[in-house]
């Protein structure tokens, strides 16, 4: 059996492993809450992760276009880039998939001499990680843009007065 077939066959087991590895990056017992609480609104983090790792896995099996990939990555990364993670931790979860695959398919890979195919899959995972990094940077940029817009909003009304034609300069605002 080819590795691709194996991956498809063992999909749910691999995904579960991967998800658990990701959830375990959360502190203390957060992971249990994230795994258990199935409510989308009460547990947006767990919900998003569960849904999106599935999509990412399909990408890996090359069944989904790149736009879906970036949306899906973005959904995860957007959460992780405002949690208490360093950048490497925020995107490092992609690499956990390697471990999940190896652990799940250890025997088969040796038996069927699939290491060549495995290398191929693993380099796809590496590419995924690079895309994740792009996505992380985008999220941080979005955050900084939101930050500067927030600052602007605080003073927007004042600034618009001094720039609008019929405002009267000379009446200074002393807001601190």
């Amino acid at each position, binding site marked *: 059996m080819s590795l691709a077939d194996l991956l498809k066959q063992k999909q749910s087991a691999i995904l579960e492993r991967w998800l658990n590895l990701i959830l375990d990056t959360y502190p*203390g*017992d957060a992971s*249990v809450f994230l795994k258990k609480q*199935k*409510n*989308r609104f*009460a547990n947006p983090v767990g*919900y998003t992760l569960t849904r999106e790792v599935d999509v990412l896995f399909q990408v890996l099996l090359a069944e989904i276009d790149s736009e879906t990939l970036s949306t899906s990555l973005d959904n995860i990364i957007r959460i992780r880039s405002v949690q208490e993670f360093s950048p490497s931790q925020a995107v490092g979860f992609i690499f956990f998939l390697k471990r999940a695959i190896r652990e799940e398919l250890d025997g088969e890979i040796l038996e069927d001499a699939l290491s060549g195919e495995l290398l191929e899959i693993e380099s796809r995972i590496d590419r995924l990680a690079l895309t994740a990094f792009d996505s992380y940077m985008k999220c941080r940029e979005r955050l900084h843009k939101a930050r500067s817009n927030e600052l602007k909003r605080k003073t927007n009304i004042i600034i618009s007065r001094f720039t609008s034609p019929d405002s009267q300069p000379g009446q200074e605002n002393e807001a601190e």
Partner: protein
Amino acid sequence: MKALFSLIFVIILMLLVFAGVTGAGMHYIFGVVVPYIAIFAFLAGFIYRVIRWARSPVPFRITTTCGQQKSLPWIKNNRLENPDNWFAVVGRMLLEILFFRSLFRNTKTELKSGPKLVYGSNKYLWIGSLAFHWTFLIIFIRHFRFFTEPVPFIISLIEQMDSFFQIGLPIIYITDAVILGALTFLLLRRLLDSRIRYISLHADYIPLFLLLSIACTGVWMRYFEKVDVISIKQLSLGLFSFNPPGTELLSGIGVMFFIHLFLVSFLIAYLPLSKLMHMGGVFLSPTRNLANNNRIKRHVNPWNYDVKTHTYMEWEDEFRDVMKEAGMPLEKE
């Protein structure tokens, strides 16, 4: 670890009684002295705690509102979730104390794959705690047949209802089964849900193990190793009339009874020191037992004191010039 420690602690308590009664013949100590001490400790401790709460005033009316306020006459207000007077507060408190309203609220929207919204709920905690508290109350009342002679009708009635589903002999009480189930659930929840385990202290496990042991020893005496009920009733009547029987009568009662009695004594003596005081505290919680009628009826803070504020005149003094320039009205030109 905390659970294990608590379990061992309760086991040690039981062994202590076993050794004391069977080895050292301390029937009188465990049958008479300990219960008296426990009741005294309970009363003193309970009163102390309640007085301590009552002595702290309620400076502000900080009701947590869970429904529409009373405002305009054509807007229907939710009196039980947002009471506007004393009467409605009583209703809210009754719902809370008798039916654990807030735990019942633990509802949520489930998202089944689809994506489809389904309104489900998480009522296990509510059912478990409601089952425990109610059966505990019934069992407590049922025990009055040991303390009263003749047994009042109402207690016999409760007993009859409790054994409604009679399966063989002796009569099986529904409450015995329910309380064991409920306590086991509450314990397992604490042990298996790692989130709850994380927040649990020794003080959370000890009451559970105590209650479980009390229930188990009670069930054991009733269904498996019959004890001398007549003597027990004589003892309890004697205790209540401050005329306790002597060692002679006590030594005829099985050791299991003394274990049961000691654990109960320990529980009630420990109660005022523990979180079990919630049985008194629930009545006093200011977020629940006050009406949300601050704008209707003045609430007085007994320790309200004057503070240094920035008065209008001080403020005008500081800004008079700029105000004048802007043509704003002034108190003093």
